[in-house]
């Protein structure tokens, strides 16, 4: 998926060699995207900032593990941030606090952007359009897994739907997402 800016040459190989300038550029390029994700997952600025710091330090120490054949630079960084964000969410029992908000609508499609740098706003808009094309029930199930780390069983309980229904929705949703991704390529 070419959702990175056209100028976004791969930085991680240089970071893996200990190039601090490349690491600074990596931070400048993606910190806003990562921070936006962590705020969405954690709903808490202090936690998000701590995890953002952990994420980039991890990127520095593990850059040699990055394999461009297995995915893009931004996807790799996002996967680290998302994984650590979900770990933090679970460990601090933030989920319990969020139960009160269980009925709230999950929506990120209408947020205005203020810091589109690495990921161009038109590309971001294209991704949003692609996500908006997913049936809402599928999108909601996938978002609960992605942003809250809920298992299929937990999603079924949260949405008061049979487990089989949730499994089907998630499978279909992921299939469609993959097709959308292929359309970008």
């Amino acid at each position, binding site marked *: 998926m070419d959702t990175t800016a056209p100028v976004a040459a791969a930085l991680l190989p240089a970071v893996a060699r200990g190039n601090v300038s490349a690491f600074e550029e990596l931070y400048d390029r993606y910190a806003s995207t990562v921070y936006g*994700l962590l705020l969405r997952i954690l709903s808490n600025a202090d936690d998000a900032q701590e995890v953002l710091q952990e994420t980039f330090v991890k990127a520095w120490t*593990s850059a040699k593990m990055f394999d461009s054949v297995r995915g893009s630079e931004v996807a790799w960084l996002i*996967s680290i941030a998302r994984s650590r964000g979900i770990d933090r969410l679970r460990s601090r029992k933030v989920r319990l606090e969020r139960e009160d908000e269980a009925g709230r609508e999950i929506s*990120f*499609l209408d947020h205005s952007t203020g810091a589109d740098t690495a990921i161009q706003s038109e590309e971001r808009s294209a991704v949003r359009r692609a*996500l908006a094309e997913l049936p809402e029930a599928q999108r909601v199930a996938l978002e609960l897994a992605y942003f809250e780390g809920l298992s299929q069983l937990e999603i079924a309980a949260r949405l008061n739907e049979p487990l089989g229904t949730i499994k089907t929705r998630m499978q279909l949703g992921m299939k469609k997402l993959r097709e959308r991704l292929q359309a970008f390529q």
Partner: protein
Amino acid sequence: MTHEEFESIAALDALGVASGGDVAALRLHLAGCHPCRVARRELGQATSMFAIALAPIPPPAYLRAAVMAEISPESRTNRWWLATAATLFLALWGWRELDVRAGRAEIVRLQQQNSRLSAEIAALASADTRTITLSGQEIAPSASAKVFLQPDRRRALVFFHDLPANPGDTSYQLWIIRAGQPKPASAGIFDVTASGKASIVIENLPVETEIEALAVTLEPRGGVVQPTNTRFYVAGDAGL
């Protein structure tokens, strides 16, 4: 399991909600199946769309400085001194606890032990040490394991908890599933007594290729070259 079923697991894995056993089986399959590897990569890319679609929000400026300070050589030097100081403290503390009237041989033995433990503590506390949790699977749901992986030393310490005691004619065997390797590699065998606890040290860890998952099976006494079954007791994704 069919390719379609593996793709279903890959979709859940990309969302981070697949079970440890499924992830281990998937990693094993991916090592030898190119189409499924492509599918897993694309599914991983697809999930990142959720993050990319969010409004980017600039973090506070001081965070950038904090991150840069964290990775600076000076900071790492400080951390080295802290580790050294902690090790020294432990060594001195251990020395003080020794009975000075004990024989010289005993003192030497305890010093060596203390030094080794201090080194282990320092290694475990190192910023480069990765921690991986293996969770109990269907046949041993309460079991778990903690892996402390030290890639730079090609070594790992693994602590198992609440595993059922293995019958005398069997051994538990730990397997490492690596990227691009169709067959898992044995990382060692171990026994578990009624306490449910065990630990092993893995030396000469194969770090040339990325470790994707770890899993434990019960095998004939003494271990086998390749796993004879996929009934995992504990398993977990070693990914980031």
